[in-house]
């Protein structure tokens, strides 16, 4: 949107959404690779991790589980929900990166991916905040997020419990990044394309 100097010009809402979606798509792809790479490296048998399934720390956020539920949420509340989801991973990601170094034979690629996800997640959070201001300048983001209490399990002395904890975090990260990606693609069509892409 190059516009003549002097007039105020900004990145359009459509462009902001397009860029946010490039990031959210990329972040989810990385998170899927990270989760699969961890399971491939540390699983001790086909069913090893199925018992590891436990609730994600973001389960308390009531997120739509289908298209109809998504249509029922007010658009600006939905944008705020995405911000809360993104923000809920700022702390866990930084701890995961630090603690993952203590995993036995921790592959560099795994840590590099986690760092790339952390960096792009912060970038995406900045972008969605900018989107929220355009959607509704009066929007109030109370800085909410889901508290994460998973550090002790990542530091457990028992290796199996530790591996279960990592597996669950990466599984939840994969799930939540998919939610964010899905929601942004939906919100783009609802908000920036009047409900029809």
């Amino acid at each position, binding site marked *: 949107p190059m516009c003549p100097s002097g007039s105020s010009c900004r990145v359009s809402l459509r462009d902001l959404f397009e860029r946010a979606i490039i990031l959210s798509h990329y972040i989810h792809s990385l998170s899927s690779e990270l989760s699969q790479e961890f399971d491939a490296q540390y699983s001790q048998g086909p069913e090893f991790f199925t018992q590891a399934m436990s609730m994600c720390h973001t389960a308390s956020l009531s997120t739509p589980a289908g*298209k109809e539920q998504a249509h029922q949420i007010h658009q600006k509340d939905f944008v705020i929900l995405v911000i809360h989801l993104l923000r809920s991973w700022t702390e866990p990601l930084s701890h995961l990166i630090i603690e993952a170094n203590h995993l036995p034979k921790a592959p560099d690629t795994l840590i590099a991916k986690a760092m790339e996800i952390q960096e792009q997640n912060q970038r995406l959070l900045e972008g969605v905040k900018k989107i929220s201001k355009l959607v509704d300048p009066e929007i109030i983001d109370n800085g909410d997020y889901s508290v994460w209490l998973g550090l002790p399990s990542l530091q457990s002395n028992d290796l199996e419990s530790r591996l279960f904890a990592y597996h669950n975090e990466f599984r939840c990260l994969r799930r939540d990044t998919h939610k964010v990606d899905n929601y942004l693609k*939906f919100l*783009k069509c609802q908000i920036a394309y009047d409900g029809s892409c």
Partner: protein
Amino acid sequence: SPPGKPVIFKCSSPEKETFTCWWKPGANGGLPTNYTLTYYKEGEDTIYECPDYNTSGPNSCYFSKKFTSLWSVYIIRVYATNKMGISASDERLVDVAYIVEPNPPKNVTLEIQQPEDGKPYLWIKWVPPTLADTASGWLLLQYEVRLKHEKAVEWEIYFAGQQTNFKVLSFYPGYKYLVHVRCKPDHGLWSKWSEEHSIEIPSDLNMNDE
């Protein structure tokens, strides 16, 4: 004898709103055998029975929108029962977000275009598969085109991104070309290829700029 062990061999969703699981019966032990699918969801204790055994045909369970939620793991099992006993399949863990496999694209059309100021090109167009609501943004599809002339051995494959048309710029006059198109959700599985469509390229087609 008691029935053999059934196997849930596939679960998939065509549009990220509903899903179906299919199973293969085990040996039926020579007796009338009844099949029951049950499931419970991660973090919940209540066990439910399949809501609809018919919509998706024999040995299947269809979960309509009402019974489908993404991002929560369904733990599914099928039981085979006859007079002599009962046998259960292995548990199948399903998150609908990751089993999306659309139907193929539809209405594939082929045309030769001869722009005033450029070389002729083969223009392939299609529409998204039925059931796929790409307009709302809930489902996002990417497309791939494959093409070859009748005598060629290898398919040429082109990635078309989210567009529902594609221009092929290098082709031979005087040949019959075969085309298929398929699609994939942003994070999901490729559909089957569409039906075959073909076009005869006139041999006197002038391939240079007009």
